[in-house]
C-alpha cells in the first residue's frame, strides 16, 4: 500500500548453467563466433535446399564450365557461379556447403564419440584405481606423447580411406584428452564432502560417480569438447589434403583445398582459397566459442 513496503522477494532460481549462459552472452566476440557457427551448421544441414547443384552428381556437371572465375555464368547461362568452378566444372559454392557437411560430421561426430568414451574411461579409472587406473593412464600418456598427425597417418595408412575410418582414427586420438581430464576432475571431486555425504545416505558408488561426480566434472570437459571439434576438423582437413582422409565421393573442405592446389600457381586461385576461407571461418568461430566457454566455465576464474 505504501512505498515503505518491501517489494516481494523473488527467489531467483538459476543454475550454474544458466549463469554460465548469461556470462557467455556478455562477450560480443563470442556471440559473433556463435552466430557464424550457427549459420555454418544450418547451411551444412540444409545443403541440398540452398545450393544450385549437387556437386557430386556428375549428371549435373558441365565440363565446359571448368575453372570459371567467380561471378562467371554457366555456358548455358542458367546460373551464376558466384565463387567460380573447379577443374570438373563444379560450382564451388555448392561444393563448399557440401564439404562443410562432411567436415562438421567428422569433427563433431568424432569429438562426441571420443568425449563419451574418454569420459567413461576416465571416470572408471578414477573409480577403480589400482592397475586399471595405471593401465588406462599409461595408454593416455602413450597416445599424447606422439604428434597427433603422425599417429593419424599411421592408423589411416593401415585402415585405408573413408569417412568412417577417419572418424575412428580421430576418436582413437582424442579420447585420451577427455580421459585424462575426467579422471583428474573425478579424483578431485571424489574427495569433496558431498561425496562422503552421499555415501552416508547409502547411495551406491556407481550412482555417486555418474549422478554426483560426473555433473561436477562437465564444465572442463565441455571446453575440451569445443576445442577438440576444431582440432578434429583441422586434422581431417590435413589428412584429406594429404590424400589419406575422405575419398573424392565424400569430399570435405580439406579435399577441396587439395583439388585446387595444383591451380594455385596459375590464376585460378579461387578453387583452393574459398574452401580454405570456409575452413578458416569455421575453425575461428569454434575457437571463439570455445575460449569463451573456457572463461565462463572455469571454476578458477569464477567470481
Amino acid at each position, binding site marked *: 500500500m505504501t512505498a515503505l513496503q518491501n517489494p516481494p522477494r523473488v527467489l531467483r532460481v538459476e543454475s550454474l548453467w544458466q549463469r554460465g549462459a548469461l556470462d557467455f552472452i556478455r562477450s560480443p566476440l563470442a556471440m559473433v563466433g556463435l552466430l557464424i557457427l550457427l549459420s555454418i551448421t544450418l547451411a551444412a544441414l540444409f545443403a541440398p535446399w540452398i545450393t544450385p547443384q549437387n556437386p557430386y552428381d556428375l549428371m549435373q556437371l558441365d565440363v565446359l564450365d571448368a575453372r570459371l572465375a567467380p561471378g562467371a555464368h554457366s555456358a548455358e547461362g542458367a546460373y551464376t557461379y558466384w565463387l567460380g568452378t573447379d577443374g570438373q566444372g563444379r560450382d564451388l559454392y555448392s561444393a563448399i556447403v557440401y564439404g562443410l557437411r562432411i567436415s562438421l560430421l567428422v569433427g563433431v561426430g568424432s569429438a562426441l564419440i571420443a568425449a563419451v568414451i574418454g569420459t567413461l574411461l576416465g571416470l572408471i579409472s578414477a573409480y577403480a584405481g589400482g592397475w586399471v587406473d595405471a593401465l588406462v593412464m599409461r595408454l593416455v600418456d602413450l597416445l599424447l606423447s606422439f604428434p597427433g598427425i603422425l599417429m593419424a597417418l599411421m592408423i589411416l595408412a593401415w585402415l585405408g580411406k573413408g569417412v568412417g575410418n577417419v572418424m575412428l582414427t580421430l576418436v582413437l586420438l582424442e579420447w585420451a584428452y577427455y580421459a585424462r581430464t575426467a579422471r583428474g576432475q573425478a579424483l578431485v571431486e571424489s574427495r569433496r*564432502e*558431498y561425496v562422503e*555425504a*552421499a555415501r552416508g545416505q*547409502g547411495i551406491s558408488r556407481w550412482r555417486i560417480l555418474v549422478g554426483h561426480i560426473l*555433473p*561436477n566434472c562437465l564444465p572442463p570437459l565441455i571446453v575440451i569438447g569445443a576445442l577438440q571439434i576444431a582440432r578434429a576438423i583441422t586434422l581431417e582437413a590435413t589428412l584429406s589434403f594429404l590424400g589419406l582422409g575422405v575419398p573424392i565421393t565424400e569430399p570435405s573442405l580439406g579435399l577441396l583445398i587439395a583439388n585446387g592446389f595444383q591451380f594455385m600457381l596459375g590464376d585460378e586461385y579461387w578453387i583452393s582459397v574459398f574452401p580454405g576461407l570456409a575452413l578458416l571461418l569455421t575453425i575461428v568461430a569454434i575457437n571463439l566459442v570455445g575460449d569463451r566457454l573456457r572463461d565462463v566455465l572455469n571454476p578458477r576464474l569464477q567470481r
Partner: protein
Amino acid sequence: MNAFQQDVRPATLEVRNLSTSFHTRDGVLPAVREVSLRLQPGQILGLVGESGSGKSVTGFSILGLVDAPGRISGGEIIFQGRDLTRLSAKELRHLQGNRIAMIFQDPMMTLNPVLRIDAQMIEAVRAHSPMSRREARQHACDTLASMGIASPEERLRAYPHQLSGGMRQRVAIAIALLHRPDLIIADEPTTALDVTIQAQILGEVQKLVREQGTSLIWITHDLSVVAGLADQVAVMYAGRIVEQGSVDAVLDRPLHPYTQGLIDSLPSRNQRGQRLRQIPGMAPNLLSMPAGCAFAQRCSRASSACSELPPAVEIEPGRSLRCFHPAVYEAGAAHGQ
C-alpha cells in the same frame, strides 16, 4: 544406586572396544582406541573432545565411512543386534542413510553444488524406498516442512548456493531424517552457524528426535550445546574416552582432570575480568603417544602411577572413568561452587 536400576532395554547401539587406525607413511596412527558406548532408543549422547581427539572418526567408524588408509582395527559395533564391522558392503549400504544417518559439519560442502535440492532429496529417498519420483518429491517436501522450513516447494527447486547457511543445514538434516532412522550421527552440524540459528536447529532436532524415538550422537567441542541437548556425555581425549556418564553427573561433578579443564576453560559471565583458565600444553601427537595416560603431561594431579594406562572403571552404573586420580567431592558439593 544398585544394579537393578540399570536400563535393561535392548540398546540401539552398543560399541565395544572400537579401535580405528590410519596406516600412513609415517606409521600407524591410532585415531580411536578401545571406545565403548551404549545408546538407548531416543537417547542423545554428546561426544565431546578437542580437534583430533577421535570423536569424528568414531562417528565415521560407526557409519562404516572410514576409507583407506584408515580401517577399523578392533572391537564391535552392535546396531540392533548386528555387528556392523562384519557386514558386507551391500548390507552396510542398506543401513546407511536408512537406519543410520549422518549429518556433517559443513552444510556448504555436503550438498552437491550442481544438483538442485529436489534431485538430491529424491535420490536419497529412492536409495532405500521403492517410491515413484513424484511420491519421493512429496515425501521430501513434507520432511522439509517438518524441519520448520517455510515454502518447501520453492526450496526444493533451488540450488544449494541459493540458500543461506542455516537453510542448507536444515536441508541436510531433513535429508538425514528422510527415512526416520533409528540412529543419527551428527558431526558438529551447528559449528559453522551463528548462535541464534544454532539454537533454532538444536530445538528442532531435539523435538524430532524425541517424537520419533531416534537415538542421536551429537559430536561437538561445545560443552554448552551438550549441556542443553544431551542425556549422556562421553569425553574423548587422544582417541580414548576418558570420562562418560549422564550429562548432569559429568558436567556438575567432573572427575577426570581433562573434563574439569574443559569446563573451566568455558568463558562465563561470572568470571568477567579474570583471565580465562586454559589447559596447559598441547594434545599429544598420535603417532608418538606416551605409554601411560595421554593426559599426564598436562595434568596437575599426575603422579608416577600415570605412566601406566589407567583402565576404564565403571564407578557407578553408566558412569565410567579412566583416571588414577579422580576429583573428590564432598557430599552435596558440586564443581565450581
